[in-house]
């Protein structure tokens, strides 16, 4: 069976991975999820240039997560297992320092690591350009900007590694905090240069230019009072409906107002950005592996939602106020192994990570 490569199939898997990691704080389940994601990360072939930067990005994320553990430990003065006391006069950190807070912080780090590894798998498997194909024409420009934004982090990490290596070749040693100054300056300059180049290239390719009207984006916005009125009414309706959710709840007229507002807004946006018809030389094929990955991922997602609705206590865990051993359901542990699907459904491997 060929390996899954359709963005929609991978999106379904990513939704399952994110949901699995975000719906529980049970450290046993989180460890299982993390290990499964690491296995997928190690076994899926890399297709993008920036995939190598993700390992550094994961390390950076875990580093900040560990800082979060310290923050949790020092600021959450909850729990019965007191490790030591800080004077109560000390602002914010004064009070009891508990083992429960440490465990709570550590589960947060595992959760963060799960999200990062899942993002890394998705990023290394799918090219951003491939994702952009599936954005509706009306939102093409928004999708493009989002894609550039998503690609910014790995590109910055790559630039960081290159500059650091270049400085090391020149004999620079990174020992103290001030030694990182020669690295930050070039990194900032490189980022600005890249941004200018990107803007020029996008301008050269006619971003925001509408072939139908023969005008640029500026001309589209001045497309007449119906469009402006639609934007105003749709935005107001949607805003009032969202705002009203906190006051009136799910009242039928509130939901109707939201739906009408969203409809008007979508219609206006479609009218504003008609998009252009694009033809593809290479078409993305929806293969059997994609079908299997998407189906099982969606089934897993539905099952997870069902557990949340019917048996939320199975996923629930908190170390507060007194540390207890987390529960573990065998069937749930097996269900989390669905995250190994990309590894299971793929057949031949193009090239492995070293």
């Amino acid at each position, binding site marked *: 069976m060929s390996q899954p490569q359709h963005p929609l199939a991978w999106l379904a898997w990513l939704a399952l991975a994110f949901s699995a990691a975000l719906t529980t704080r049970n450290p046993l389940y989180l460890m*299982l999820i993390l*290990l499964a994601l690491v*296995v997928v990360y*190690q076994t899926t072939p890399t297709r993008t240039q920036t995939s190598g930067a993700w390992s550094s990005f994961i390390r950076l994320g875990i580093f900040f997560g560990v800082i979060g553990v310290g923050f949790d430990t020092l*600021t*959450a003065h909850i729990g019965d297992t007191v490790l030591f006391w800080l004077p109560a006069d000390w602002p914010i950190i004064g009070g009891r320092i508990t083992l429960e807070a440490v465990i709570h912080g550590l589960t947060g780090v595992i959760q963060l690591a799960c999200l990062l590894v899942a993002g890394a798998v998705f990023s290394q498997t799918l090219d951003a350009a491939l994702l952009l194909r599936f954005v509706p024409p009306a939102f093409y420009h928004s999708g493009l900007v989002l894609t550039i934004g998503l690609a910014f982090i790995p590109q910055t990490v790559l630039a960081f590694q290159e500059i650091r290596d270049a400085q090391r070749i020149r004999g620079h040693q990174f020992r103290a905090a001030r030694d990182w100054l020669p690295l930050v300056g070039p990194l900032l300059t490189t980022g600005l240069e890249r941004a200018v180049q990107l803007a020029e290239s996008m301008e050269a390719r006619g971003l925001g230019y509408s072939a139908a009207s023969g005008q640029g984006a500026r001309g589209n916005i001045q497309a007449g009072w119906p469009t402006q009125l639609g934007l105003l009414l749709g935005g107001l309706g949607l805003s009032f409906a969202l705002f009203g959710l906190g006051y009136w709840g799910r009242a039928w007229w509130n939901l109707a107002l939201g739906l009408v507002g969203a409809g008007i807004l979508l219609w206006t946006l479609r009218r504003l950005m008609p998009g252009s018809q694009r033809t593809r030389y290479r078409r993305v094929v929806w293969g059997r592996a994609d079908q299997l990955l998407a189906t099982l991922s969606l089934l897993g997602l539905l099952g997870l939602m069902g557990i949340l609705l019917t048996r939320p206590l199975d996923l629930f865990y908190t170390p507060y*106020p007194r540390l207890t051993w987390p529960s*573990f359901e065998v069937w749930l*542990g097996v269900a989390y192994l669905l995250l190994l699907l990309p590894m299971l459904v793929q057949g031949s491997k193009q090239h492995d990570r070293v």
Partner: protein
Amino acid sequence: MREKFFEFVQQVAQGLALDYKSSVSLIGWYIGLCASAGHNRTLDDKSSASRTWRCSHASRIGWLVVVVGLACLALPANAQPRDNRVGLVVQFGNEAVVTGCYAYTPGMTGLDLLRRAGLETAIEYQSIGALVCRIGAPTIGADGCDYPREDCLCQARTLPWRYWAYWRLEGDSWVYADRSLSGRTLQPGDVDGWAWGIGTTDFGAKPPRLTFDNICPAPTQTPSPVPTSAPPVLPTATATEPPTRTPTASATVTLSPTPPPSWTPTVPPTDTRVVTSALTPGVIPSPALTPFPTSSPLAEPGQFTPTRIPTASPVIVSPTLPIATPSHTPGPTLRPALTAPLVAGQSVTPTLAPPGVSPTSTPTQPTTTTPTSQASVARVDLTRLTPVVEGGGSTGVSQTPPLSYAFFVVLIAGLLVYLLGRRRGVG
């Protein structure tokens, strides 16, 4: 006036002492950091040995000041404790009020106080603090949301918002808490208040007006127990009324696991709205009253339960007071039902005071009390009386069978072996 002035002077003095310590600490940090930076810079510059020596010593002195400053900051404040107790007031949605007085322990937070009360609570714990979802008490009921089965603020998502508002008592008025209950460190004499009801983002339902003395009465009189085996009977006519539950009724239940060693056997005639320690030790053997079920799972012999009293006016039940046992039961026991209209063993004097009467006044009808024998005296230990049911799944013992954990270990080991084998294969 004079006392208030001295109190003000004392507070200013305490504030200055704290500021002094903070200033010393901050100066210490500053000098230490500056000296440390200068020391590093001089070490790079090897040309001047004397400068290195000076900076090295400056660094040491700076860090010494840091340590001294931190030690100063760590010193406890010179506060004179008003009373080595803290109080708790909980007002439920049906206007039933529970008050409690507890021994103060250093570092005690509002969360500790609420948990110590032994009330049934559901609390959502977050890194930024704890959030009370539900509070319940036996015979009164529970208000709030059954976290984690449902959203902690399930009744505050749509108008009107209902939630447990957190207050602290300052003087004789309630101040809406600006910190989480886990972030509030109590001092001796502090009183925390909880009230369920309609509120906004910056204001909520307010507990009844009480003072610290109402909640934690000073020990005034030590009763001399009368050695008698016969259960004393309190001839109070009002207590023999059928326990019809009036929706507008409110009851105050005083809960005190560490009660003062004395109680007031006789209530002076006043028009008090809330009276603490005004209860009589006695049992009214009225058939209209609901007897305690002796097979209650929460009950222990010789214990008493806070109950809700059906009355048209606020009254108080003080479980800190000794009560007598019914003749046919070995001792008063708990009534687990949350909606029980009334319990036996009450010795309550309903008052007809209008709302808003000063809490310092006393009931209109005197209540004669009969001291009982020491054997029949029951004092409430809430930590034993009611199980602390806390939301969060932390029941203390995991229900997972060991085989499940073994399966977890097998899963983890399998994945790890696969990863390691793959790495070796790639290598």
